């Protein structure tokens, strides 16, 4: 394996959890999650040469992953596709059934948000600050603040509905 491939595989291995979390937030079934996961890895590989380190690697990865998730949803609506990769096992199960139940509930709430809100919510849950979220998504810091308030409102409404 050459040095570019080694750097790339290291980067992906270090961030495989992040790719999984994004795939699960945007797709509700395992096959679509696998497809999106592959698509994100593919897009990252495609853009790896152009990534010059002007921004942090994680910022760039989040940006590509969220863009890919958004584009994936649009393409999925138009047509089915994908290479079968049976050896890709990305299913995750928490060892604690109560935690697993809470995770499922959390993902259901995230999936009920709009595509933009999903992205912002994921970054917020990842512990990103408003400035970083703004840098990744391209919105202003103020717009991020407004959208986070809207997300909180929506979450409260979801609770009331239950």
């Amino acid at each position: 394996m050459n040095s570019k491939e080694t750097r790339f595989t290291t980067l992906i291995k270090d961030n495989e959890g992040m790719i999984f979390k994004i795939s699960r937030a945007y797709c509700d079934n395992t096959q679509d999650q696998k497809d999106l996961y592959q698509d994100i890895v593919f897009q990252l590989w495609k853009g790896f040469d152009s990534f010059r380190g002007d921004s942090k690697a994680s910022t760039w990865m989040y940006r590509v992953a969220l863009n890919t998730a958004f584009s994936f949803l649009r393409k999925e609506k138009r047509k089915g596709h994908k290479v079968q990769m049976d050896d890709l096992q990305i299913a995750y199960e928490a060892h604690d059934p109560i935690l697993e139940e809470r995770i499922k509930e959390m993902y259901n709430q995230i999936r009920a948000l709009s595509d933009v809100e999903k992205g912002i919510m994921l970054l917020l849950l990842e512990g990103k600050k408003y400035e970083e979220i703004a840098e990744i998504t391209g919105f202003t810091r103020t717009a991020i603040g407004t959208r986070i308030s809207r997300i909180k409102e929506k979450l409260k409404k979801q609770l009331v509905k239950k």
Partner: protein
Amino acid sequence: MELEEMQIAWSQMSSELEKQKQLTDELIMKMAQQQYTSKINKILRAERVGAIICFATIIYILVNFTKFQSWQSQASAVILVITLFVMSVGSLFLLKKMKAINLQQDNLSTTIKKFSKYKKYTSQFQRGSILVGFFVLFASSAVFSVLFSGKDMFLEVDLTKMIIPMIFGLIIFGIIAYLGSRFYGKSLKEAQLIIEDLED
């Protein structure tokens, strides 16, 4: 679940995921390269093929233009050539818009805007194509009759015998046009709402 509870669950899940690393170097490169060979340009291929077919038809009509005897069939050929040209150019324009989306470099806001604009243009274009198709239906029948059977409909065929099949064809096309127009109208509205939301 409130945001604070979600943050706790998220962080617990993240710690578990850290322990469950599953990817190997081989699998990562397989994902990166298998996708490359199988998927790239798949979406754009159909649109390119469509544009090529339109251009080929234009050339074919122009090369055989002398076969059109009556002024009506000549006018039909001109209408069809113009329509096909506009459709090919429109299709290539949309292709260009689609290609302007750079998933590796744009941020989320830009990507969504570009996607929504592409969707908007596509919906407008397809809606327009359906309406144009309605009017070009008759012209294309006249042109292809000359090109493929050598008969100029306006000189050799009894047009009164064609009234019933044509009315039937127009009704079917009218239904398709109505449904298509409604569908693309809805898509257009959705795209417009996304753009407005982003520009808030």
